[in-house]
């Protein structure tokens, strides 16, 4: 391994913390692969060797896992990894056109990075945001309701070093390596930033409020809990 001593020391501290979360050490492998990506940007032979050593398994076993999951990259990734959903629904709603125009604009294809190392592109699968189609991501933050023009401007801004805010996410996108560290289970303290929901998330609730629709009241005959500290089950409860 060619990690600098201070990098290695930090990696070892982090790995120890990850391993301690689980009843069995091997469960730490997925977060540890995110961890080594947060240092190296992608899965390197150093990262594989580190994980193997920490968990007492072989590099081949680590590589077998690392090659199974698409979020582990085996080549250079841009500082901003840009995803365009081209699964059916987003593709039909415009994702295919976004991909074509963006890929041409940036000059790289699927899972490729620009020469300057700023941007890489990926055709991503369904990202559970279909009501915001067409959807894109940057370092796994949501960019909702995209168009080819918005997509190209987004990438131009990222390349120019401008601050860019996701639609549903923190006030600005972090780097690929910073994102990988969160995935490894080390929060960045930004959970409180950004909205709690997007517009489509709330359409049903807003309609229900306009029309006075509610779930039925709680069981009338339901006894109060035995524990006096339990609090009363009023109709105003969140669980109504």
């Amino acid at each position, binding site marked *: 391994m060619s990690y600098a001593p201070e990098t290695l020391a930090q990696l070892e501290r982090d790995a120890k913390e990850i391993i301690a979360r689980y*009843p*069995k050490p*091997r*469960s*730490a492998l*997925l*977060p540890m692969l*995110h961890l080594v990506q947060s240092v190296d940007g992608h899965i390197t032979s150093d990262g594989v060797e580190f994980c193997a050593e920490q*968990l007492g398994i072989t590099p081949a076993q680590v590589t077998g*896992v690392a090659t*199974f*999951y698409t*979020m582990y990259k085996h080549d250079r990734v841009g500082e901003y990894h840009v995803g365009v959903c*081209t*699964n*059916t*629904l987003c*593709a*039909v*709603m*415009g994702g295919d056109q976004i991909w074509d125009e963006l890929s041409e604009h940036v000059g790289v294809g699927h899972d490729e990075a620009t020469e300057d190392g700023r941007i890489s592109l990926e055709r991503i*699968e*369904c*990202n*559970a*945001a*279909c009501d915001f*189609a067409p959807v894109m991501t940057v370092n*796994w933050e*949501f960019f909702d309701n995209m168009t080819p023009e918005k997509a190209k401007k987004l990438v131009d801004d990222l390349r120019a070093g401008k601050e860019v805010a*996701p639609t549903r996410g923190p006030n600005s996108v972090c780097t690929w390596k910073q994102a990988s560290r*969160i*995935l*490894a*289970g080390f*929060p960045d303290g930004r959970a409180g930033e*950004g909205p*709690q*929901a997007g517009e489509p*998330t*709330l*359409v*049903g*609730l807003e*309609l*229900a*409020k306009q*029309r006075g629709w*509610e*779930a039925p009241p*709680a069981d009338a005959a*339901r006894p109060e*809990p035995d*524990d006096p500290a*339990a609090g009363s*089950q009023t109709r105003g*409860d*969140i*669980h*109504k």
Partner: protein
Amino acid sequence: MSTTLTPVLSRTWDQPDSFTLAAYEREGGYRAMRTAFGMEPDAIVQAVKDSGLRGRGGAGFPTGMKWGFLPPSSPNPRYLVVNADESEPGTCKDIPLMLANPHVLVEGVIISSYAIRSNHAFIYVRGEVLHVIRRLQQAVAEAYEAGYLGKDILGTGYDLELVVHTGAGAYICGEETALLDSLEGYRGQPRLKPPFPAVAGLYGGPTVINNVESIASVPSIVANGADWFASMGTEKSKGFGIFSLSGHVTRPGQYEAPLGITLRELLDMAGGVRKGHRLKFWTPGGSSTPLFTDEHLDVPLDFESVGAAGSMLGTRALQIFDETTCVVRAVQRWSEFYAHESCGKCTPCREGTYWYKQVFKRLEAGQGTEEDLQTLLDLSDNILGRSFCALGDGATSPVTSSIKLFRDEYIAHFTQGGCPFDPAKSTVWAGEQ
């Protein structure tokens, strides 16, 4: 209109700080947990059984019965694992739920773990949703801080550790046994069942795996009673569920309603199919559920009725496509998805989805023949029911249903020597340029 919306899980989502502990408690959160700690664990299991709650991750297996399958004694610890790997194309309910209110899931985990006598729980969340992961991490940290997780919770003597575990991009890990292998640090490949996870799951211990929405529904059942829950929905599909409308619809989004609501009712609430267009086909529960058309607008969206009409309720992921959409293109893309996501363990799924991909490439390019349609149906026969898990089965759904419903459209591709549709007309911005 007979059916109305019933916001329970979504009730507080419009509060700007809805994801914080303070907001959750302000609205009555964590009271059900206290109620639960005053109950015998078995009484909670019974209440969930009585409520009729069925798994909200697609399969619809009764949640309380699943809990009841745990052996009464076992040398190994018991585990609760929440499946937050939402990835089925079209499905987009758990992610906004966890973004807006991760605490209802944490409270559900605490009550459910207590009920099944587990001291270690995991939330397996897909990796590609960074802000949702931040919110989950914060909610769990807040719950520890408040003494709702950890040792001797609220002086009850009950201990619970909860770990947020991030996946790494593999649809297959939404399959419960593949998820367990992934959580154990292996490639996410399904296990042979039996033994079922209730008997031999995580690390070989008795394990319950439930979907996010199922677990998030548990606090409301404890707070309001099984009868309250069962008063909503239909006879065999009780309670409420989040219905996710997407695609060519005027107001796409999340609509929480009793099971048994129809697409006609939901479309009416959502402003209908986008202006100037009409419904062509739709999925009732994600891409793995056979396609429906405008003939199915009045099918009650519950497990039994959707099944009787030839599809599956799945995850209530209602993807709406209008007449501008080429069904061959749509199914081609789904087939490419299944080929990409097949884990490779079982030959029928691995090779079959790869063949689908090749045949569809020809068909969409107008170079196919009627024999290709027969090949697709033969392939489907050889994939369906012949693999460890349901991924391959799901891959056949859009293929066989689309050939049945739109055979002429397939044929038009090769009689006209290409796709008769203009993809530009299907886009959100069609007509604006």
